[in-house]
C-alpha cells in the first residue's frame, strides 16, 4: 500500500539534486559580493573619518577628503531625478492605462526596452552632443543630470509600468462601471495601490545614477574644483568620476584613499537600496488587498 515506487524514489532523488545545484549557484553568486565588500572595508576603512568626508582633496588629490565630490553627486542625482521621474511616471501611466494595444504602442515599448540596453558611453556621447553642444548648456550639472535622466528613464518607466499592471484589472473595471473616468480610476484606486513599486523603482534608479561614471565625464563632471557648485550651470566633482580619476589619472595617490572613496560610494548605493527595500516593506504593509 504505502510504499514508494521506483518512480517516487527517482523523483525524490531529482528533487534533492535540483535543490543542491540551486543552492550551490546561490553561494557562487554571494562569494564575489562578499569579497568585493570585504576588500573595500578592510582596505578603505582606515581612510574614513569626518575630515575625509567633509574636506576637499589637497596635494594633487593625494591627500585630503571628498566633500566636493559628495556634494556634487547629490546635485547630479537630485537634478536627474527631477527630470526623469515626472517624465517616466507620466509616460508609464500613458502606456499602461491609456494607450490602446496596437503596433505603435508595442513599438514604443520595444524602444524603451532597447533604450535600457544602450551602453552608458553611448548615452554619454549623446548627452555631450545634445545637451552640452546643441542646447548650449556647456559642461554643467544640468547637462550631466539630463544625460543621466535619459539613461535611467527606461528603468523608471518599466518599474512604474510593472507596478501599475500589478493592480488587478477587476478594480479598474469596477470603477469604470460606476462611471469613473480613466483618470479618476488612476487617482483613486490604481496609484494608491502601486505607489510602493513606483517608489522602489525610483530609488533603484537613484542608486544607479550615483554610481555612473561614463555619462557624466564629458557632460559636467570635472576632476577638481575647490568650491562647491552654486547652481545647475556649474561644473562639479562627483564620487564616481573622482574614483575613476584618482585610480587611473592622478599619480602617487595612497591606496587607502582610493579604497576609501570606493567604500563611501558603495556605501551610498547600498544605503539607498536598503532604504528602497525598507520603503517597499512599509508600503506593502499598507496595501489593501
Amino acid at each position, binding site marked *: 500500500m504505502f510504499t514508494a515506487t521506483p518512480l517516487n524514489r527517482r523523483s525524490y532523488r531529482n528533487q534533492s539534486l535540483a535543490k543542491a545545484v540551486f543552492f550551490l549557484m546561490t553561494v557562487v553568486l554571494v562569494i564575489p559580493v562578499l569579497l568585493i565588500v570585504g576588500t573595500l572595508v578592510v582596505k578603505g576603512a582606515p581612510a574614513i573619518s569626518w575630515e575625509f568626508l567633509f574636506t576637499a582633496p589637497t596635494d594633487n588629490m593625494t591627500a585630503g577628503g571628498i566633500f566636493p565630490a559628495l556634494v556634487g553627486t547629490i546635485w547630479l542625482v537630485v537634478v536627474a531625478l527631477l527630470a526623469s521621474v515626472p517624465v517616466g511616471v507620466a509616460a508609464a501611466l500613458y502606456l499602461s492605462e491609456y494607450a*490602446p*494595444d496596437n503596433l505603435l504602442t508595442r513599438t514604443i515599448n520595444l524602444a524603451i526596452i532597447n533604450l535600457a540596453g544602450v551602453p552608458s558611453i553611448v548615452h554619454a556621447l549623446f548627452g555631450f552632443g545634445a545637451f552640452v553642444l546643441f542646447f548650449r548648456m556647456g559642461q554643467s550639472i544640468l547637462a550631466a543630470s539630463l544625460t543621466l535622466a535619459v539613461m535611467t528613464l527606461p528603468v523608471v518607466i518599466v518599474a512604474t509600468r510593472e507596478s501599475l499592471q500589478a493592480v488587478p484589472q*477587476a478594480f*479598474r473595471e469596477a470603477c469604470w*462601471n*460606476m*462611471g469613473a473616468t480613466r483618470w*479618476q480610476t488612476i487617482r483613486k*484606486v490604481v496609484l494608491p495601490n502601486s505607489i510602493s513599486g513606483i517608489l522602489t523603482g525610483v530609488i533603484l534608479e537613484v542608486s544607479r545614477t550615483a554610481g555612473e561614471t561614463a555619462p557624466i565625464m564629458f557632460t559636467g563632471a570635472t576632476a577638481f574644483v575647490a568650491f562647491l557648485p552654486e547652481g545647475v550651470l556649474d561644473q562639479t566633482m562627483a564620487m564616481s568620476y573622482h574614483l575613476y580619476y584618482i585610480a587611473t589619472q592622478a599619480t602617487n595617490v595612497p591606496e587607502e584613499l582610493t579604497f576609501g572613496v570606493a567604500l563611501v560610494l558603495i556605501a551610498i548605493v547600498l544605503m539607498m537600496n536598503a532604504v528602497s527595500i525598507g520603503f517597499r516593506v512599509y508600503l506593502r504593509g499598507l496595501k489593501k488587498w
Partner: protein
Amino acid sequence: MVEVAGETAVVNGVPGPAYDEPPIIEVRDLSIAYRGKPALSDVTLDIHRHEIFGIIGPANSGKTSFLRALNRMDAFNTAMEVSGSIRINGKNINDWRNEYALRSRIGVVFPLPVGLPLTVYENVAFSPRLRGIRKRAELDEVVERCLTRAALWDEVKDRLDSLGSLLSGGQQQRLTIARALSQEPELLLLDEFSIAVDPVTTMRIEDVLKELRSELTIVLVTNLVQQARRLADRTAFFLMGELVEIGATEDLFEGDVKDKRTTGYIEGRFG
C-alpha cells in the same frame, strides 16, 4: 398574476413592469464579437421600466457580453466589437458624448464580488464622491441608506472603517450591491450575483431586488434557472450567442415555449 390596472401593472401590491410605456431599453440587431469571433448575434429585445428581466443560458452564451454592451464597456476593450443599436430612454447609447455619465446611471454587480481596496465606507461613498457630494453628513446618509437597502448595514455599522476586502464573500457581494445602489441607478445589471453567496444571503438579496423593482429596472443574468423563475417578469434564453426566445417567465417554466431547446435547458437536460 399580473393584472393591468390603468397606467401600470400591479404585482402583489408592488407596481409591476410598465408594459404600456415605451421601453427603457430597446436593443436592435445587436451583435458582439471579440476579434472577429462572434459572441452574440442579432439580438433584438425590449426591456421595460420596473421590470426584472431575466437572462438564462449555459456558459459562453453571450449573457455577460450583452450586459457589457449595455454599459458601453467596449470602450475599454479594443478587442470587443459591437454592432446594431441599443437605445436607453429612447437615446442611442453611442450618442452619449459623455459615456461616463451614462455608466454612472447604470449599476453593475459582478459574479465575484470586487471590493475596491478601500474601507467599507469609502466603497459605498465612491460613486457619490464622483458625483461631487463632499459634505460628510450627506455621504453618511447615502452610505447608511445604501448599506441598509443591501441588507448589510446591521452587520457592518460598527466597522465601516475596516477594509471592504476583509468582509466575508456574501457580505462583499452585498457591499457591491450597496455600491451599485449608491450610484442611484435607473438600471441595475446583475451578472450571476449569487455564484459566491450562500443560499440564505441569496434569498435576502432576492427580497431586496423584489423591493427595488418599484424604483428601477433590473437585468438579471443568472445561472440558476429557479432564480429567474422566482424573480424575473420575463426571461430570455440565450444559447451559444443566439437569443432563442423571450417570454413571460411563468409561460416558459410551464412549457409554453416556441422552441423545445428552452424547455430542455430549463429542465436541466443540457447546459
